[in-house]
């Protein structure tokens, strides 16, 4: 059932021209940024070579690329999550799901995995692009893997948050603005806090991504993302149930 709903979500996404447009534009941005970083690296390579322990190509090209992707996704994910439940409610298709023999858990997880798998396809081009560098040089696979896992967890947390906000309203556009406001708010709380040990840092998903970005797999960060995602998924299920209670 979860798979069925996820597949329906994907089918609807691919039926919309705007999806393909966003896909194309995003690939262009990734590619352009990748090439720009690569060019900068080639320019400073002679100077780097004089250092005792020079940073490699993975750290100078891949890490900033992943960080840019994380920032872009913060703006982009709300555009996709806004439709998840708000549009079902507006088009009154929610009645089909609510009167079908499945629980709120199936609906929420189906939609979550549906959109997540779409976004994974979208960001899968990043490691593919970076692995073309392996033709000319050796790469730091550990760093790449940490970044991939980090970006996956980050995207999952964005989707869960966006879906919850989508479940609160009937207007997709309000869901998009709401999710964007919360995500940017969390980000600003992170970069606005001056002290390094400020508790504000701990709230922000992007702050927890920075360790992954530097190639550090910290179980505390993983736990943060898992808890963040689960929390909002549970809230969404609760909200969907309230739909039946309050009408």
């Amino acid at each position, binding site marked *: 059932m979860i798979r069925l709903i996820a597949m329906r979500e994907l089918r609807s996404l691919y039926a919309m021209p705007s999806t393909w447009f966003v896909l194309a534009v995003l690939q262009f941005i990734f590619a352009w940024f990748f090439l720009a970083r690569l060019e900068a690296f080639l320019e400073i390579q002679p100077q780097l070579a004089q250092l005792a322990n020079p940073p490699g190509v993975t750290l100078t090209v891949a890490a900033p690329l992943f960080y840019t992707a994380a920032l872009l996704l913060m703006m982009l994910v709300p555009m996709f999550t806004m439709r998840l439940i708000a549009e079902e409610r507006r088009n009154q298709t929610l*009645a089909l*799901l609510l009167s*079908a*023999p499945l*629980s709120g858990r199936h609906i929420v997880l189906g939609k979550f995995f549906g959109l997540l798998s779409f976004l994974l396809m979208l960001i899968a081009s990043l490691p593919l692009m970076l692995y073309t560098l392996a033709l000319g040089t050796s790469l730091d696979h550990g760093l790449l893997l940490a970044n991939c896992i980090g970006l996956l967890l980050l995207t999952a947390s964005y989707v869960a948050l966006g879906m919850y906000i989508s479940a609160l309203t009937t207007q997709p556009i309000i869901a998009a603005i709401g999710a964007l406001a919360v995500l940017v708010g969390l980000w600003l709380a992170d970069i606005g806090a001056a002290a390094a040990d400020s508790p504000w840092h701990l709230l922000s998903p992007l702050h927890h991504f920075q360790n992954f970005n530097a190639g550090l797999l910290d179980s505390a960060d993983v736990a943060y993302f898992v808890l963040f995602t689960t929390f909002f998924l549970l809230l969404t299920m609760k909200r969907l149930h309230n739909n039946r209670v309050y009408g």
Partner: protein
Amino acid sequence: MSNATPEITLSARNLSRRFGSRQVIHDVTLELKRGEVLGLLGHNGAGKSTTLQMLTGCLLPDSGEIDICGFDLRKQPTLAKAHLGYLPETPPLYRELCVHDYLTFAARLRGVQSTVVPDALTQTLQRCGLDSVRQKIISTLSKGYQQRVGIAQAIIHNPAVIVLDEPTVGLDPTQIRDIRTLIRELGNAHSVILSTHLLNEVESVCDRVEIMQHGRLIYGDSSVRMQHYGHVSGFIISLRHPPALSELEAIPGVSRVEQLSPGQFRVFHAQDDNTGSLLLSMAAQQGWQLEQLTPLHATLEDVFVKITGEETARTGALK
């Protein structure tokens, strides 16, 4: 099935529901048997859609119980809902999908095995007259076809109980006739409950009627008997050379005569009387030159207005 009492597929007991401080549904009790079409009749805002939403699990009642094919909707929702097909007021269509994909999704969602889906799909497309549009995107279809797709998703899994909320709204007369024939056909093997404010819909498709007003069921009977409710015996009679009003009133059995126009009268008489033939022979004898003699027939509309009017008067008197 040969046993005398058909199985009860849906039963709702003492449903009530409030939105905020407003009590919308008061103590509604309904029962539906297999092979029966029940019409839920009422003014706009009488609580028809809310009742249907509760019956399909889209809205939880504040109190009361709903059983579908013996499964409690609150305690075993998945088992109960598997026997349910629901068409809400606005058909729940994913407009970006094509008819084929959408109906396949609807069937799988209701637990139809993937091996059986093609057969179910072919049968449903044929039943709802959707064969010619199966590959079309739903948003490009006309309103009538979209409504048919809505009905198709409600019946594709062959459910025991079909709930239709105003199924013929916004359709043209031919489509309305087709849909009614389909509902009648469905009513033979399944249980259908439909809400409507169109009285001729009830007349043509429903076996039984429940009238709803201000969230209460105020009248329930078979639709044939409902038409006899408050039935009056009488004729409308047109005469070329009419006699005086008093002469007509003097005919034995006639209780009251109203003059509609110089040559036309409305004649009321006691029930089961032979006044009709008496009137005919009188007209022939006296040379009144009868042009027309039509028995008075209470339309469903009259009955509906009468029942809801009586109820309003009664509740008004109570207050």
